[in-house]
């Protein structure tokens, strides 16, 4: 990196990085065992303590913010497992986002296809719900017309980059219609109404996992909630915020706040840990915009994950009694953001453990990241694959029939993991909503 560029980046880092948080890190090292990239490499620089030291060193003028610095900031999965481990409560997630925001403002050097993917995803796709819908429709055509089969059979997937080809294999069957087109915008509660909830439909969830969105709505309705799905909501902005596109993330947040305020809901429900985590932090995202303080706080304190609201406030449908004595063995792969940011890791476990025909088996390190982490598995394939391989060793050891997840990224990653590393054919990856619905409502 040229000297002048490095100096400009240092100045931006100085402005963007919260120096209080950098100072709060007392370098005790308690975060190291929690960090997946440190676990994989054993290198201090690949740990939260190391990355904070690098940020501080650039701001303090001890080191130049060079390419290696940028790479290291991008190497973090953003799983935030270090935050609960930190005695001093350092807001690491905010620091890494601020660092990436500064880098993004200066970078000229994303590798070719990473640049294309980023632009496509961040600018052209995710912010536009209609385009996400179109993507869904396109995928449906791709799958329905036999094109998918043809592509796979002819080996044409090999034309994609290896990572995209891997992802292609994990695509769910797509319906092409979003949740509103299928269920409308207002779905009444079954029985006496407990509260009105706003459903956050998400981009990936609504275009690729629409069935899961439908089942989320029906589960909520069964549990006593009136569900409103504001039509004007859009992408949560999580991927933007995590990758340094803070400006775009803020615009998306404001638009969502407006949509849900107009709907006048008691809670805002997410079924994707990754979305939920940024939704619950909209007040932080907009912290430097005083005009938005009241609205963003209103929004943030209403956000709940589907599992959490079912456990805390819901009237759960009685699960059907098992048909036979066969219990299915289930293991739960935490969504990092549901666990570490929304602090909602217990609820899915409670729901699963309460099902009569389910045996919940914890896998070793269930709480550590699976390597999906937004688009990390596309941009950092090597580390993502290494993490996934170790994750699957732990999942295989449980001999589970189902790996249950709470986030579309994790779900696709686990499907990929099963495809590549499962030691038996019977194991399936499934979103917790689909799993609960099939056992609580369907039968």
């Amino acid at each position: 990196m040229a000297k002048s560029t490095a100096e400009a980046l240092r100045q931006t880092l100085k402005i963007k990085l919260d120096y209080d948080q950098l100072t709060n890190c007392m370098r005790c090292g308690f975060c190291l065992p929690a960090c997946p990239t440190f676990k994989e490499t054993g290198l201090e620089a690949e740990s939260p303590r190391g990355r904070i030291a690098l940020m501080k060193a650039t701001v303090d003028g001890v080191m130049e913010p060079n390419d290696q610095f940028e790479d290291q900031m991008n190497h973090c999965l953003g799983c935030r497992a270090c935050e609960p481990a930190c005695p001093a409560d350092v807001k690491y997630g905010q620091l890494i986002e601020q660092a990436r925001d500064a880098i993004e403002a200066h970078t000229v050097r994303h590798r070719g296809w990473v640049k294309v993917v980023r632009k496509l995803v961040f600018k052209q796709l995710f912010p536009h719900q209609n385009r996400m819908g179109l993507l869904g429709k396109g995928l449906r055509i791709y799958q329905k017309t036999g094109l998918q089969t043809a592509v796979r059979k002819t080996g044409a997937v090999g034309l994609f980059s290896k990572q995209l080809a891997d992802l292609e294999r994990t695509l769910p069957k797509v319906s092409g219609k979003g949740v509103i087109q299928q269920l409308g915008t207002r779905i009444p509660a079954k029985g006496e109404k407990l509260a009105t909830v706003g459903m956050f439909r998400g981009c990936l969830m609504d275009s690729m996992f629409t069935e899961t969105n439908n089942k989320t709505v029906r589960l909520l309705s069964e549990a006593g909630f009136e569900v409103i799905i504001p039509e004007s909501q859009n992408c949560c902005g999580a991927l933007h915020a995590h990758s340094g596109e803070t400006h775009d993330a803020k615009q998306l947040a404001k638009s969502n706040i407006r949509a849900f305020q107009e709907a006048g809901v008691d809670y805002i429900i997410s079924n994707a840990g990754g979305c939920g985590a940024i939704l619950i932090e909209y007040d932080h995202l907009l912290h430097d915009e005083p005009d938005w303080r009241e609205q963003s706080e209103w929004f943030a304190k209403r956000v709940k994950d589907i599992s959490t609201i079912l456990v805390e406030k819901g009237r759960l449908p009685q699960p059907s009694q098992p048909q036979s004595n066969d219990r299915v063995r289930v293991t739960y792969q935490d969504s990092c953001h549901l666990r570490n940011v929304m602090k909602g890791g217990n609820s899915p476990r409670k729901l699963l453990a309460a099902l009569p025909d389910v045996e919940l088996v914890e896998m070793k390190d269930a709480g550590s990241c699976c390597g999906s982490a937004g688009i990390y598995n596309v941009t950092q394939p090597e580390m993502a694959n290494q993490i996934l391989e170790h994750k699957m060793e732990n999942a295989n050891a449980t001999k589970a029939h189902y790996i249950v997840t709470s986030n579309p990224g994790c779900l696709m990653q686990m499907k990929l993991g099963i495809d590549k590393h499962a030691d038996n054919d019977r194991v399936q990856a499934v979103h917790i909503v689909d799993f609960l619905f099939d056992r609580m409502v369907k039968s």
Partner: protein
Amino acid sequence: MLDRAIVAELREAVGERYYKEDQESLVTHSYDGTPMLQSLPDGVIYPGNTAEVSAVMTILNKHRIPLVSRGSGTNLCGGTVPVQGGVVMVMHRMNDILEVDLQNLTATVQPGIITKRFIEHIEGLGLFYPPDPSSMSISTIGGNIAECSGGLRGLKYGTTKDYVLGLECVLASGEIIRTGGKLMKDVAGYDLTKLLIGSEGTLAIVTEATLKLIPPPKHKKTMLAMFTDLYGAARTVSRIIENRIIPATLEFMDNPTIRVVDDYAKLGLPLNMAAILLIEQDGDFETVERDIELISEICHAEKADQISIASNQEEALKLLTARRSAFTALARLRPTTILEDATVPRSKIADMVLEINRIAQKYNVQICTFGHAGDGNLHPTATTDARDHEEIHRVEEAFAEIFEAAIQLGGTITGEHGVGLVKAPFLEWKVGSAGIAIMKNIKQAFDPLNLLNPGKMFAKETRRRVVLNRG
């Protein structure tokens, strides 16, 4: 940056990718767990075995380049900050458990193994390795040996030095020595094993250690006793020991700590208490039950205001939470947390706590005290802000006076964290000038060119005693 020819030699010794001198590697090995210290090394090296350590040391010795060996850098005395540059040697690649000898009840390990991973492995075999520093989930056995780490079980079970039977070390010259072995008795010459434990990387680089294992206790019970009278709490500690009871754990929190902990963890602790003792006993069922009963009697006799005994594991965990929250709660108060470890004879704990509180007030700084009452090892912890230089100066003055007070009470400047850089100016207060001279001679014998962790343990100047004419 080192001369290219030397770098080539080092790369030859360990392999191309295991010597690094990029900015990222240098910055991330310029600090340890100690606040406010930073110094860049010239290079970072990751040896894979003893032969490589020896080769590296031979090269560095030839070119007179300093070396700091380190594990995870969790120490709190600046012990692994490369203040004179040179090479930092990270032992993480040497992390194997080489042998667990079930006939002799010993384990032989490489220095880079994480303490907790080792303990879990040993416990999986139905055995027990007691040293449990608070940093054990990330600290390494090699680091524990270098600093002679303690922990919550030190009172009954002793510290790291009581569990190291033998060492393999590389000297500054590159030569390899072995001390001790799987022997319970060995008086052949000076006890170099004990000398090397706690030598903070200034005498040799530990490359292998043989550790003593013991059978685990069968039963455990936990209790909490709260006192409005500080001396009551302190007398309780002394009287438990006097009554020939050695609890596995005997921990202490003072009033400022209780307030901070309760505010953080919302445990409903009574805020008017002067001190809380956390007591745990382990061993045979009958012994544990009898000891806990006797301890409660002593607590009552010393006018404990409240006593709670855990009836099961879950309740015990709740009681432990109070003590465990102390560090976390204090760390969240202000940006910079300076955790020290002045130690006094256990009969002097109340006097020491009062002294600490008086000194904190005198210098107008916040210092909360908790720690291992059973072995007199207190952790006066200052919460401050590194950016406020004037306040940091007052904190430093306060700590100097606290160490002074500890020595006046027959104590020492550090019970388990080590001297390193931070306590070096105070070492002479404890060991005297003849003591320093003999230690320097020992250093000279091991490391004549002063290459191993230079600048540590021995300061250029001893700090002036704060209170010179004290009654």
